């Protein structure tokens, strides 16, 4: 899985590409964990290049949210396509996350502006 990070107004925007499933979720988990343990407190995950996510990927997002809460950081998700949004919805995960339509809105939300 290709994962790119960009820095936007003090926030780090993580953009994974492809599928987030049982074969790729560990890689994303390690990537995000490294950012948080490295001191990042404003994280946006951009789903615009994600084809789909399965429960293995939701576990990673849940772990990120819990870690960021413990660290008093802010996390926002953005640009979910229909397959991703629908899986979050079925899992009852949408109320657990700040979800924005655009990357710019998510960066603003985590206080990067």
């Amino acid at each position, binding site marked *: 899985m290709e994962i790119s990070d960009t820095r936007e107004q003090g926030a780090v925007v993580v953009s994974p590409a492809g599928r987030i499933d049982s074969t790729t979720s560990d890689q994303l988990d390690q990537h995000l964990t490294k950012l948080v343990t490295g001191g990042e407190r404003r994280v946006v995950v951009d789903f615009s290049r994600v084809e789909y996510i399965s429960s293995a990927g939701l576990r990673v997002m849940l772990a990120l949210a819990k870690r960021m809460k413990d660290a008093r950081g802010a996390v926002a998700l953005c640009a979910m396509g229909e397959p991703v949004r629908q899986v979050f919805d079925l899992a009852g995960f949408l109320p*657990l996350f700040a979800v924005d339509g655009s990357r710019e809105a998510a960066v603003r939300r985590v206080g990067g502006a």
Partner: protein
Amino acid sequence: MPVATVSVPGTTSGVGRAAAAFDEFCRRQSVPADARWRFQVALDEILSNIVRHGFRGRDGTIALTFAHDGRIVSVEVVDAAPAFDPRQAPAPDTTSPLEARRPGGLGIKFAQDLLDELSYERRGDENHLRLAWHVRPGAAGAASRTTDGNQ
């Protein structure tokens, strides 16, 4: 009816190979995008469950049969792990607040909710699972569907 079969080892890399084989089948048989992602999510859940809870590190093989006749897309999954009927799995927690939320059990729910059929049969010493999706007229892609997968 176009049919393809593939056998993969009951390991995480085997799950990845099954996903790649399904992608290839979808490309060759022009399976609509809406059906593709639903099956990819459901297969990831079902197959990784078989690897984790069925084989538990023991050697095993998972056999898959993909079919698409223009109206119905189906996948049959056969393994020789101990009997497990996913329809009997307990319902997952989808309402607790963040601190208390446990993600377990979601996979089976996804397979059930995203597809139209999930049937199970124990035949001899094998689990036989069948997943099916009825292609919606004019459903070219995921973007054409805005509501949940049960109608």
